């Protein structure tokens, strides 16, 4: 041994193996077991089977009512190739954009398959948790693509950077939530909903139409994307209608938001727009009410009306608040699509259907069903789906308004730019008619003609 190498460590090398033999054996056994397990799953992961090898499971349950519009056949034909979809979303301690979307999508799949799938072709989903890490997003993209999906749907902030290029290269369309410029502009990306950008703008247009509103505060998390999009989307709209807007960004860390609310109140706003979502919305509303701004003067995102998290636990605190809904709200029970959705979730899931994310999962699968029926179940694949998305216009999107093609000028990949404005009153959802087009407000400037 080189004596110079001994400094600080090597004289201890002799005692480095002071562990007791049983512990060593246990460790070795666990490592070997893990490697074997990894090997086994690696072999499974390499297959492109529609019902195996998916990262989180595949849904093929067989109950539920009939999909809107009826199906071609009433039974799955095992001789026909299945139709597989990939779901990619984030599920981490701070955020879950996977579990609820998955539950909604599985309910839709269950309903579709019980009616014979896509013309006898079984519908399956393979999901992957991207964990909000670009490296894992890339992994999810490759892994789900290996299962030969017709399309991807879901939500990850890094999809535009780390997943979309892989799907675009494979010419498989993505139906992801819209966050980055790539999501809005890549020809292989499609937005069935307007995303945060659109809901912000729709809230601004709604408030522009109200004569009692002169000054507005946007109260939202201190996230780079909100600092980026909020002034861009809200500023010009309020300027055009002669109203003022102020921005207050509250910290992401767990914190008492009293100080941030006070900061917002100092602007003396007539109305407050929030983009938070979840249980924290109840706290905002309470804090604003304590500071003299009533709940009727607060409008939140679609997450602010997730019943289990906000309206239920919040009770009377939430009475009167507004929300921007990317889809026809779960409380809009006169809407036949919503009715079908509620029935489907109740019959096949233990989840509370009064949740926008569950609706999103369900709606996306039903939209695929709509397109498949239009192009012919036998012909339905990535190519025909993409062609339909690029050419067709005016088709009704379940739980939303019609498809717009081409999309808004600056955001050409948005296909459903409308947002519904609703209010929580006396334990019910009320669709706002005043200042809207039958309850809908455009989130983007639509192309003329």
């Amino acid at each position, binding site marked *: 041994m080189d004596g110079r190498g001994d400094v600080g460590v090597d004289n201890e090398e002799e005692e480095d193996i002071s*562990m007791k033999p049983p512990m060593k054996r246990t460790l070795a056994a666990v490592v070997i077991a893990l490697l074997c397990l990894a090997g086994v799953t690696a072999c499974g992961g390499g297959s492109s089977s529609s019902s195996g090898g998916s990262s989180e499971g595949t849904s093929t349950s067989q109950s539920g009512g009939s999909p809107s519009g009826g199906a071609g056949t009433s039974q799955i034909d095992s001789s026909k190739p299945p139709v597989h979809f990939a779901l990619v979303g984030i599920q981490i301690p701070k955020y879950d954009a996977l579990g609820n979307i998955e539950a909604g999508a599985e309910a839709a799949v269950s309903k579709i398959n019980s009616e014979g799938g896509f013309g006898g072709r079984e519908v399956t989903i393979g999901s992957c948790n991207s964990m909000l890490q670009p490296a894992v997003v890339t992994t999810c993209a490759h892994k789900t693509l290996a299962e030969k999906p017709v399309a991807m749907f879901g939500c990850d902030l890094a999809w535009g950077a780390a997943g979309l290029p892989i799907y675009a290269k494979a010419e498989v369309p993505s139906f992801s939530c819209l966050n980055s410029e790539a999501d809005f502009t890549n020809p292989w990306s499609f937005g069935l909903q307007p995303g945060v950008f659109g809901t912000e703008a729709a809230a601004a247009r709604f408030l522009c139409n109200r004569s009692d509103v002169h000054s507005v505060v946007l109260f939202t998390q201190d996230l780079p994307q909100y600092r980026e999009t909020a002034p861009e989307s809200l500023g010009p709209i309020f300027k055009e209608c002669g109203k003022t807007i102020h921005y207050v960004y509250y910290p992401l860390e767990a914190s008492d*938001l009293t100080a941030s609310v006070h900061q917002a109140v100092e602007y003396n706003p007539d109305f407050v727009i929030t983009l938070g979502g979840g249980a924290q919305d109840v706290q905002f509303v309470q804090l604003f009410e304590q500071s003299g701004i009533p709940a009727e003067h607060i409008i939140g995102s679609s997450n602010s009306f997730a019943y289990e998290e906000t309206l239920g636990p919040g009770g009377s605190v939430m009475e009167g608040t507004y929300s921007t809904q990317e889809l026809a709200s779960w409380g809009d029970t006169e809407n036949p699509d919503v009715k079908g959705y509620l029935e489907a979730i109740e019959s096949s899931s233990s989840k509370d259907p009064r949740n926008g994310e569950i609706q999103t999962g369900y709606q996306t699968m039903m939209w695929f069903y709509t397109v498949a029926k239009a192009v012919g179940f036998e012909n339905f694949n990535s190519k025909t789906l993409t062609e339909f998305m690029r050419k067709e216009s005016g088709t009704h999107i379940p739980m939303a308004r019609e498809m717009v093609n081409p999309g808004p000028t600056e955001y050409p990949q948005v296909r459903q730019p409308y947002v519904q404005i609703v209010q929580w009153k006396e334990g019910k959802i009320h669709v706002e008619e005043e200042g809207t087009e039958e309850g809908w407000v455009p989130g983007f400037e639509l192309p003329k003609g």
Partner: protein
Amino acid sequence: MPNVITYFLLSLGVGATYALLGNGIVAIFKGSGVLNFSQGAVAMFAAYCFSALHEHNVPKFLNLAIVLAGSAVVGALIAVLIFRPLRTAPVLAKVAATLGLLLGLQGLAQLIWGTTSRLAPSLFPTNTISIGNNAFLGVDRLYMVATVIPLALLLWAGYRFTRPGLATQAASENERGAALLGFSPTTIAALNWALGFALAALAGILIAPLTTLEIGSLPLLVLPALAAALIGNFSSFGITTVAAFVIAWIEAYLASVWTAPGIATATPFVIAILVMVLVGRPLPTRGGVSTGRPPRAPLGRGSRLVPAAIGCAAVIVALVVLNTTYQAAVAASLTSAVVALSLVVLTGYVGQISLMQLTFAGLGAFVTAKLASNYGIPFPLPILIAAVVVPIAGAVLGLPALRVRGLSLAVVTLGAAIAVNAVFFSNETLAGGLNGVPVPSATLWGFSLDPFEHTVRYGIFTLIVLLLVALLVGNLRRSGLGRRMLAVRSSERAAAVAGVNVAAVKIQAFMFSSLIAAIGGGMLAYSNSFVTFGSGSFAVLPSITLLTVVYIGGIASVSGGITAGFISAGGVLYVAMSGIPDFTELYLLISGAGLVWTVISNPDGGAVFMGDQFGRALQRLRERTVGRAIAATEPPAASSDSSA
């Protein structure tokens, strides 16, 4: 009323929480010399338990008593089961164990309660009073202050006048001396862990109604609490309490007057770092307890060549044979391994606990992406330029290491990581927000290395880079600088006496480490068409997770760094195991438990352990072969003699 005072009053609730958590950290540090990074996670877990019992209609104060007592018992058990075996372990092992606890508690909470945020029941009345300036203050905040101040006084008195308190003080100064006086170090540690956990539980129960119950952000409350405890030098309950209220006030006030992103988040840490560095006061050390040996740093000479060649061949075969999922996972593993090797140099060789390695990687990715996209500099020059530029930042961010070491440095690097992420990476104007910075596809001598078009080529490129970096780190270990680094790790004082320029070695280590991290960051930038900084990829939690996997792999060995790459999120093992149902939900729990287990049972790391096992098996095989050969050459007469 001036606005400054209004914001001070509005920040009282948060200040009280920071004070409780900070004082818990101080109590645990006094009792056992462990800096508990999981204090916020304990608060989160206790708050969830309180909420769950509330849902079962357990009366409020009985509920409180149950949760506080339960937390205290768990704290004492953790002291005995996890930290007693680590009593003589190096500081790094103890820090790693608390990080393992943090991840484990988060993972467990996620399994039990899910990720959805929820409202928490309040212990105190929630009506409000006007404090002027259109501001209203919840009465519960005043109750919180009325709870925390007397508690701080009680803690001060308890540690000054009671027998267990005096024993703790004695042990915190000289554990062996205290033991000779009849105080059991284990009992003292258990008592203080119990107290620390109970304080954390109370903090969680009090803050949750103000912030909502949420698994992700509540554990991060430990960060400002650490800053407060740091200002209190981890010994004074009074100063920690005052510092906690001041930090909360600065956060609230700055957010109202200085709206640039991240300023309010970063400022308390910058202040704490400045105080720490300017005062240059080390954390109190515990006299009399010998520090165990740090993780082994094997020399890795000739005998490693064969395993390295086999490993390279296996990677190339895997890249060629496997499907694109695994090809991408191999490339991601190799890239992560490069970043992991930067930690091997800084923490493994020099013993400088860094929680900002991904900050260096992020800076490398930023410089690379900007040079490639804004100035059109061809690949691989942007990575090389980043490897020159980022070490300058490494030297600057490493300057505090000249004044502080060990635990203090861990806190300082944590603060620096938070500050850079909050002010720089989260700044949409500088770092592009969610759009990130576009990165053109890599091309070398006409060959496209696009990770999407040519995954195999890109994978081989990452393998070559990793090989070069591994050679560099391996040779560093054998060089004069490497030996000086190990000398500094063993004992700075002894190294200085032996003529080693400790300051120069530390700065060189920071520069060397940030150089490697910058190369890893540059590779990360080229691995996608955009590199995004706003999604938290280079924030402090991923840095903590990186330290976790490198420790599990083997923090002081090249093979450990490479192993870390393969077991990190997105790596080969992760991808292979993600086929197991609910694996991603279990990932945090497995990481945390794995880290604690490694720290206790195999502090050298998995790669070194496996290497030893392989070496032993080889040795046994050789001995058997030699034995058989000897038996075969023995004269037959000998056997006939014996039979006779």
